[in-house]
């Protein structure tokens, strides 16, 4: 995993919430049934916890997880954000609602059956 320039060499204090990265299986150690493209890459793990000691981003460190377990790995991020979102509306989906209400016709449509706007 690439460490952003700004994060690299940053000093991180003991107790900060961080993410560590480690290689579980190297390319030659992968399971025999794994397809060729996956054979060429390692099996990697990312996990979060509280840093046990002061360190620099990129250092091998120990963390204590939320369950109190110790895990070793390379310090890759400090309190990383969740990167997912709702993203932008997708144009291909935008008109589906209007099309379906058009198919039903406003009067017959359920939302106008009882007491709604005529």
């Amino acid at each position, binding site marked *: *995993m690439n460490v952003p320039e700004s994060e690299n060499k940053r000093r991180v204090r003991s107790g900060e919430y961080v993410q560590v990265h480690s290689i579980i*299986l190297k390319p030659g150690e992968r399971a025999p049934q794994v397809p060729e493209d*996956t054979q060429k890459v390692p099996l990697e793990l990312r996990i979060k916890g509280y840093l046990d000691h002061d360190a620099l981003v990129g250092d091998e460190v120990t963390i204590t997880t939320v369950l109190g377990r110790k895990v070793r790995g390379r310090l890759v991020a400090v309190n990383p954000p*969740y990167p*997912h979102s709702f*993203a932008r509306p997708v144009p291909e*989906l935008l008109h*589906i609602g209007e099309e379906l209400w058009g198919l039903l016709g406003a009067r017959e449509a359920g939302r106008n059956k009882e007491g709604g706007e005529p």
Partner: protein
Amino acid sequence: MMPGTSYADVMARRQDIMRSAVGIDYEKFELGAIAFDYEGMMDEVGYTLDEVHAIQEETSVGRTPLVELRNITEVVRRISAPGKGARILVKDESANPSGSFKDRRASVSVYCAKKKGYPGVIAATSGNYGAAVASQAAKRGLKCIIVQETYDSKGRGQPEIIEKGRACEAYGAEVHQLTVGPELFYVFLRLLEETGFFNASLYTPFSVAGIETLGYEVGTETLRMTGRFPDAVIVTHAGGGNVTGTARGLRKAGCRHTQVIAASVDLLGLHMASDTDFNRKSFTTGHTGFGIPFATWPDRADVPRNAARPLRYMDRYVTVTQGEVFYVTEMLAKLEGMERGPAGNTSLAAAIAVAREMDRDQVVVVQETEYTGAGKHPYAQLSFAREMGIEIRRGDPRENVPGKRIVIPLHPSQIHVKDVSLADMRRSYIRNALSCAKGRQISAEDVRFLADDTNSTVGFVEETIRELQRGGEVPE
């Protein structure tokens, strides 16, 4: 001497690790080279329907609303032949504590772990089940570890899986996020050994017993609402537990003639363990990549004997395309005011096609919904697909190509189901069973078991075995 931790060492110990992590003596149910006493296992280590209801009541699971989709039913009738277009109902399973029917499965596993004195629970899952186990563990005060397949080798994560990881962390779980590969199971086994936690597998009798209440509620509540049992229940199918538990619950409710239809998203052609294919799919579960292998060989799971045996229970198996599911997700929001996660709507897409073939006085029930949210949403998932180079356009969904093109229908009449041949699946199951028997003598008991497990007949099994022997696929 400390036991070795290499991949081969740990995999060699898998049976022992799994046995001590679920507390079930699976061997006592074994009957032959292939056969085992399935109903005996379900009775002895599962729980009765009343017990499961009581367990689930303690953690506010189940008794979700059954909702009639009046506007969608009306759309279906407009596009159907005269007299056709069944009423469509949906069981709003997103009303469970963590937002999906998976709470039902997790509730019984976590209860059982606590009762047996385990200090915590572990589950290997990239789906809603992780959040469900974490949520139930929080309610019962147990520790929880979730192991997820999250990223490709470039560190890109499926938005849907990232969201599920976030939810697990929100409920206090320790989340292990791995890159693509079946060796997730190796990491899982090592964690079971290290921690002595309970394996909250999706495939134990506890987990399947937890879904029986869903089938039971669907049967009894449909009767109360419409005056008849469901004519068909559509179940999104991946690992097989949803089909198995729902069908068993329907039978317990007295539904003798309800057709159980399994539905999966068609991802044929994509390799589930491929680093490059991983992010070329927009559905991370409910798809054929799990649905077909788990139906044609259930005993590939994280327990020695899988309690989820979908071929026993499905009357029909259909697929729909990713574009059709995104379309009906939008339909559900706009016409019914229910914004629900896309993957759980796989069965709704199938229901729209199936209801068109059925009479107006018949009732079809979609037995789940799931929560929606950042990442787990058509916009997020389609935007990610586009970034991965997938073509997205409106058109005829038959032009869908998994991993290359997602086609959003132009009109609801373009929603179709594709039938998967159950006869082919049964033959494939029998071939897999024989190959796992590794040439050991097949007894009459084994043949009877294969007939039960494939919902076929002794005659069909014997004929299939002869065909496979003639073709040289299995030894005579």
